[in-house]
């Protein structure tokens, strides 16, 4: 079986890639996708620990994270559509003020 440290290494690598993309990207939809990568990295850590501690609770937490991610995606994309209707842009540099 794979050692736990390798599972965690994969998880951390994905998280760092997601965090870097969150800072680097300028398209708000791509930024949102980077958040999804980070959520998945955390899920992987939960499931890795669940496997190595012989405890199903970690998998349930991953399940809840997926549910919250689904709700977050629905609301977040609705906000992006509302923003686009107002500002006609998806570039986060144009979306830096709360009020027009």
């Amino acid at each position, binding site marked *: *079986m*794979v*050692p*736990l*440290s*390798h599972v*965690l*290494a*994969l998880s*951390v*690598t*994905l998280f*760092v*890639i*997601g965090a*870097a*993309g969150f*800072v680097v*990207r*300028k*398209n708000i*939809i*791509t930024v949102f*996708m*980077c958040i*999804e*990568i980070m959520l*998945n990295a955390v*899920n992987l850590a939960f*499931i890795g620990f*669940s*496997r*190595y*501690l*012989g405890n*199903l*609770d970690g*998998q*349930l937490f*991953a*399940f*809840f994270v*997926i*549910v*919250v*991610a*689904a*709700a*977050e*995606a*629905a*609301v977040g*994309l*609705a906000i992006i*559509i*509302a923003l686009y*209707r*107002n500002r006609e842009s*998806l*570039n986060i540099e144009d979306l830096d003020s709360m009020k027009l």
Partner: protein
Amino acid sequence: MPVQIETNLVALFYIFAAVAVVAALSVVAQRMPVHSALSLIVVLCSLAAVYLLLGAEFIAVIQVIVYAGAIMVLFVFVIMLLNAGRETPSHRSQMARWLGAPLVAAFLLEVLLAIWKQFPAGALHPAAAMDAGPAAIGHLLFRNYVLPFEVTSILILVAILGAVVLAKKEF
């Protein structure tokens, strides 16, 4: 488990891990949002395979259905709807460009080192294979985690209301 199958499974883990990391890099590197979305689907599916190898069958299936299915369809739909094109390069400062990558690499190395120290190889042996099917998950979900489950239903209700209000109203 026979040794041959065991080594094959370990090799599969590393293959899918490499695919996930490369696809994640591609999500960040692509200029077109649609290409990013397609790469993200590859990340999610290879992570589902990793979950399978870690013995989390139920979560692996949920990952494919909910993430790679529902959420990514939503993403692609919005990208098509808003006609999101190529990202325009921005005039960010030069310091960020030259300092960013080394800082990210240093942070990654630091956390990896911490993991190495905390969990040296072989420090924690995997527990005996456990039953992670829908029945076992359901038992746990409706016995120990009923309150979070109910709170989740309220969260989804609020999310539906929020999405409808945001889509309807003129701001």
